[in-house]
């Protein structure tokens, strides 16, 4: 380290953006649970670490009408513990509660999980099936981007050099709608997903699937949506055949690699298994959703 890393804790988004714009080597962070290990592993050290946690707007969980707003620097532990949020988005809460240990979840955030742009990240597939939007502060004001559009490749995002994700918005799910997230890791905790699968299902009162979303993590450079699985579900009841079609479609949608955590063949097969299981769990939850009972 030739010049010691600087630390800044701006109080406003604009201050943070100004710092970022002024120093090309600066990095914003909230939990730093990916950033510090990456620096230790030999990535170039930022010239300045800009701590976003002192910006009020970036932390917190709020619901206004049918819109949830989650600060981009909110620790995922808070999201997991938020009973109202977890009741509406059980799968997204599950994904948020699977990242590392309790220690990590007290620090890590959706914003960091998304912009770190690891293909294996846990929350992006669950954010994507719920059609989450990222609100990004830019030089010209703010722009809103679908969570699915943020990561463009491993370690790469659509964010400009001086842009910061401020918050996420999510619409409350319609009645008889629920999500689920499953991941495969070799141990029970503390691993990176070998495969991740998120699903969201909406059921008609007669049990027919009226809407479905399936997304896979760790099987391609970015999260993969599985339209064929969604098409196989929509319009009919959740039969074993439909679930098998989900599995087939998920396996077919994968573009995985062989690496130290898994093989192409393993990821492909298990993506199908997890997608099928996630859809089944989401559908069970949707069927149990009392908000739709009267309709």
């Amino acid at each position, binding site marked *: *380290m030739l010049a*010691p890393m600087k630390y800044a804790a701006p109080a406003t988004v604009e201050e943070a953006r100004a710092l970022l714009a002024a120093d090309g080597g600066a990095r914003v962070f909230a939990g730093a649970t990916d950033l510090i*290990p990456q620096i*230790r592993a030999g990535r170039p050290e930022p010239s300045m670490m800009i701590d976003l946690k002192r910006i009020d707007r970036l932390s917190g969980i709020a619901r206004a009408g049918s819109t949830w707003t989650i600060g981009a620097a909110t620790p995922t532990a808070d999201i997991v513990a938020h009973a109202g949020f977890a009741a509406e988005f059980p799968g997204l809460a599950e994904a948020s509660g699977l990242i590392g240990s309790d220690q990590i979840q007290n620090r890590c955030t959706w914003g960091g999980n998304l912009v770190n742009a690891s293909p294996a990240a846990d929350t992006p597939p669950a954010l994507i099936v719920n059609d989450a939007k990222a609100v990004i502060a830019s030089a010209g004001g703010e722009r809103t981007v679908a969570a699915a559009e943020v990561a463009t490749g491993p370690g790469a995002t659509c964010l400009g050099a001086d842009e910061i994700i401020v918050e996420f918005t999510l619409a409350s799910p319609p009645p008889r709608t629920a999500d689920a997230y499953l991941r495969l890791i*070799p141990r029970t*905790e503390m*691993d990176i997903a070998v495969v991740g699968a998120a699903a969201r299902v909406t059921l008609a009162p007669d049990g027919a699937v009226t809407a479905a979303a399936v997304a896979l993590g760790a099987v391609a450079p970015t999260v993969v949506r599985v339209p064929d699985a969604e098409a196989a579900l929509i319009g009919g009841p959740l039969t074993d055949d439909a679930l098998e079609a989900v599995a087939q479609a998920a396996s077919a949608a994968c573009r995985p690699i062989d690496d130290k955590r898994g*093989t192409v063949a393993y990821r492909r*097969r298990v993506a199908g*298994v997890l997608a099928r299981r996630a859809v089944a769990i989401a559908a069970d939850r949707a069927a149990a959703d009392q908000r739709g009972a009267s309709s």
Partner: protein
Amino acid sequence: MTVTESRPESSSEPPAARPRYRFVGTRPVRHDGLDKVTGRARFAADCDLPGQLAGCVVRSPHAHARIISIDTGEAEAMPGVKAVISGGDFPAVAPGDPNYDMGVNLMARDRVLYEGHAVAAVAALTTDQARAAAAAVRVEYEPLPPVLTIDAALDPAVGAIHAHMFTSGADPAPTEPSNVSQLTNFARGDTEAGFAAADVVIEREFTTQPVHQGYIEPHAVTADASQDGKATVWCSSQGHFNVRAQTAAMLGWETARIKVVPAEIGGGFGGKTTIYLEPLAVLLSAKAGRPVKMVMTRSEVFRATGPAPGSKFRVKLGARSDGTLTAGKAQMAYSSGVFPSYAAFLGAWTVFESYDIADFEVEARNVVLNTPRSAAYRAPSAPMSALATETVVDELAQALGIDPIEMRLRNAVSEGAINTLGAPFPRVGFTECLEAIRDHPHYGAPLGPNQGRGVAAGHWFNIGESSSATVNLNEDGTATVVTGSPDIGGSRASMALMAAEELGIDVYDITPVVGDTESVGFTDITEGSRATFATGMAVVEACRRVVADLRGRAAKMMGVDVSEVDWADGSAVHAGGEHDPLPLAAITAEAKKTGGPITVTGSLDAKGVGPSFAVHLCDVEVDPETGVVQVVRYTAAQDAGTAIHPSYVEGQIQGGAAQGIGWALNEEYIYDGDGVMENPGFLDYRVPVASDLPMIDAVIVEVPNPNHPYGVRGVGETSIIPPLAAVANAVAAATGRRIRDLPMSPVRVLDAIVNSGSDSTDSSSSNG
């Protein structure tokens, strides 16, 4: 603090099989416990000296390369840098020199031999300055092809890593250098006749990958070299006398110039029986004229310290229809990293050691690779050899329709059986361990869907070696017991318990101390499960001489002949009863008048080790669609001889089982094609976490070792031997698939479930 006031009494009655003791077999709070739950205990990295510098090692990015040049000029000119060293600063070592392997391993000379190999080291005012300077040391390499697999090492067409290494033990003596460093052969009887007499013969191949001990405390050292040519070294190790000897040898110094002060040790499991940083820190300190502290990162621990070898075996066993094993044949290879080791010898010794097999032949090769030099890991070589034997025994039992414990009972070695080396076994408790598992409620408990149960056994011979202990009686009747064995997992408490038993004073009136190399007699490394056995013997020896001294002094005080004075319950007792008993404190209070301070040293080279056996029982549940294996129930029985402190005996059993489970399921070194380690961290080198494991029911079997004053056998190592096979046998029971390549990761298990047909008959034959 309130701890020493709440002295929990023994929570378990000692078994009737051995004498009842007042202290031995109870469970007092360990003497060093309070410091370890309050953060006060000082481990290696917790030592700081005024004016100390930070040291940092420059490591090779190549698995094999010639060093063309090392330019330290830029680094030396950087801010805060006080010293830079490289291979040329150490005494030259020639190939064949006894110090060659360790010397070259500490610091590369003309070549780097594995990724992470040290090539230079820097000391600077701050850690950041040291790291920056290390990055500025310019090393020019000419990459050489690395040898990375056992198959490659065994291939005569692949060039030898060491031009001076010829296979030892080969007959005739080889004329070409080889990557096979050593060959071990054991044979007895007529193996072919033995297989011909068998009704079923099964032959299988097994592979395992290198695994790391995974101690949580990285290696760390602080060294202070003074201008009179002496140095003091603070570090954690499994034996500070060994650190002293090795550091002196590496520097070419006389032993007396170095003092090693043991810090608390944050786990070792065999991995801290050798040195990596100490001579570097001493040399940097001598060059800079200031103390130097060096702490490894976790990545350095994985890349540059010694894992356990990988292995590749072919094992064949034959049995008659009644279950009697008739013959065995084993062809084994262990990869010990870049330098030779005893791995193959130990594997050859242990592979058939548990069973009374009339005819066998074993051939074991130790091979070298461009990977880190392997180090001891808890019962070195035996977990791999037991994986092979215990899997094939399980398959034989299955083929013959015999209960797996019954199969083992029929063949288990017992007193008088001749071991692999040709010596008779003393009294051992293998049968008792098998019976303990057979009779345990776990053995017959129902299993759920996708669950399977496996059993496996393990044996370790244990070792004795040299130990010293000094017992000082204090004026008030308390005692200090100083030994040279680091306390890795409760040995202070064990020493205090044995001393309390001998002296007859309370265990908390004894202060057990781990002395530095200048305050206690020579003591060998804590290895081979020897600390409680051998250092315990030295403590008992010293205490008995203290008691003899106390009796003499009491006789003086009573005015009687010493032959009339006995020692009982902490008091000198006059045989005739004419004098009141003199408690120990009454004698120490008068020590000045009866001959001066009471201090005694016991030193010995311990003989009469008691071999140890263990039998483990494992239930797993396998997800048939993902291959994920979860251990759902685990019971481990082990013969401790006598459990001095049962809690820490259980702890050794549980800890070894957990390490073995990790080895079986997920732990492995992963290298890319260039020999660069891909998983040098706890994220992808997956040791078990708390949620991966069930409770581990530790069943202590006590068949006392007749050659130890309290019957101790040593318990540290045997517990890691059975789990590999116990888990593999359980997975086989759950899935119908035998997986013989470790680790049994989800990828491998699912592949076995999906892709292989029933393989239970391949390469097995029936003679009947």
